[in-house]
């Protein structure tokens, strides 16, 4: 069992924290019908993260965030440019810019020195959960041992801090987020500053995408933004319970996905395990599928009120 603490505990903590942070933000993205913003952001930030790594030579949060922010600004500018120069509709402009920047990020990774270190294509796409080994984690008692805790992979603390920031933001500005999601026009008239909180939500989405990138990779992060909240919406008609369900689904996806990836193939008689991040996304997708089939509040079960 000491193996578990050393090899599996930290990946599960990181996966869970990433899934929770994504789900918290994702609830509002789904309600605003902006789910794909998470996808877009996670794609756009890749070249920024790689460029930051190439410039600084380290995988550190501040340069990565700075790079991601610059990439997001460049993306916004490019979208405006493509729209104006090409005269295409905004959706097409976004689609082109996001995928191009993502492709540029992948090329940058492959052709640069970044490849030889932690950043390589596979990890960028699928995350690097399995590498989060806690070498000092020789048993559960290590959780109380300061010297062992000092050897916890830094990604763990980063994601816990991100989760704390996201949680505080959602709790403190709950009213503003809800009002801005439901009725931004009314929100503006009562001084709830919907534009400001919209921008804050986008910034937070970018922060979560950048940090979750380390855990579950840049493609699969979108599953964490969308699947738990979307499944939760099918479970209830109230927002607070919806958020609670989404958090439960996030934990279930992260823990269940990790365990299935590590042990599932063995149970089936295969010798090797599969990608944990991939399995986490698969589990979140299966939860969404189950909610679609059996969720008490899925569309088909709704009674439409008396006719107008």
């Amino acid at each position, binding site marked *: 069992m000491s193996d578990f603490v050393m090899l599996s505990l930290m990946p599960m903590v990181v996966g869970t924290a990433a899934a929770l942070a994504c789900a918290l933000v994702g609830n509002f993205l789904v309600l605003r019908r902006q789910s794909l913003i998470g996808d877009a952001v996670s794609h756009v930030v890749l070249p920024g993260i790689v460029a930051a790594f190439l410039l600084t030579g380290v995988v550190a949060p501040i340069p990565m965030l700075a790079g991601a922010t610059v990439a997001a600004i460049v993306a916004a500018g490019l979208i405006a440019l493509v729209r104006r120069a090409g005269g295409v509709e905004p959706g097409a402009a976004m689609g082109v810019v996001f995928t191009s920047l993502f492709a540029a990020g992948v090329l940058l990774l492959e052709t640069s020195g970044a490849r030889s270190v932690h950043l390589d294509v596979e990890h960028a796409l699928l995350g690097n959960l399995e590498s989060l080994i806690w070498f000092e984690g020789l048993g559960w008692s290590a959780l109380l041992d300061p010297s062992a805790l000092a050897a916890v992979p830094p990604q763990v603390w980063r994601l816990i801090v991100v989760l704390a920031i996201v949680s505080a933001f959602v709790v403190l500005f709950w009213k503003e987020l809800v009002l801005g999601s439901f009725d931004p026009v009314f929100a503006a*008239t009562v001084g709830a500053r919907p534009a400001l909180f919209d921008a804050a939500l986008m910034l937070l989405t970018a922060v979560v995408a950048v940090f979750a990138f380390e855990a579950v990779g840049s493609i699969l992060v979108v599953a964490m933004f969308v699947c738990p909240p979307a499944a939760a919406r099918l479970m209830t008609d109230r*927002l607070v319970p919806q958020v609670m369900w989404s958090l439960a689904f996030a934990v279930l996806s992260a823990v269940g996905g990790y365990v299935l990836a590590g042990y599932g193939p063995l149970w089936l008689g295969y010798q090797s395990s599969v990608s944990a991040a991939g399995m986490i996304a698969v589990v979140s997708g299966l939860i969404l599928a189950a909610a679609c089939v059996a969720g008490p509040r899925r569309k088909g079960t709704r009674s439409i009120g008396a006719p*107008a």
Partner: protein
Amino acid sequence: MLKRASVLPEPTSPLDVSAPLSVRNLTVAYQDMPAVSAASVDVQAGSLTAIVGPNGAGKSTLLKAALDLIPRREGRVAFWGRPFKAARRRVAYVPQRAAVDWDFPATALDVVLMGLYAEMGLVRFARRRHKEKARAALARVGMGDLADRQIGRLSGGQQQRVFLARALAQDADLTLLDEPFAGVDAATEAAIVDVLRDLNAAGRTIVAVHHDLGSVTSIFDRVILMAGRVVAAGPTAEVFTPDLLEATYGGRLAVETFPEEGRRP
């Protein structure tokens, strides 16, 4: 025939500081297409005013521009002589029902509580007195029993009443409504009219964008006629006249007096 238009305020005249809403020379354009041109009008305190005009006449746009929701190309706006920012707490706005997603996971009570946002303040939550106030507002529009129902499970008329209850919770001196009677049932229309009359009797000012020419005279004591510009404004008896309506609607009047399905004549 356009004699009445001459009683409109001059575009360069000072704002009426006693009026709940005073507008001078307001011009709004969507991508170079003017939606409202040089509108100047005063809303009289204590009035129940209809804004009437054909589709695309800039009625909703006038309200939204006054509330700083969309940029103004030109013009001045004041609420009791002050900018909207400073008068926010005295103004309630009821958007068009179609402006929001009613599938949103919220109850009628949740939505009405949003009207108490300014009262609750930043990073605070609804307390019991807020909930009591919100329930009272719902009861006033005949929705007391449906407070805990998810808004997507309400009929269109009930949803409109939830919006009105949210405005009631704001306890505003001036309430601006964007098509409150669009697509609602007869019971809802009667309930809304009752509430607006009550508010008006208590000295509150009501301004509603209104489509149904047949009910203007029975509900509203003043009318603003719009067709991109303000054609005329004043007491219903003086402004809601065949020649001014003709000037407002042009050849489209015949169509509008026999509205399509869903609107009561």
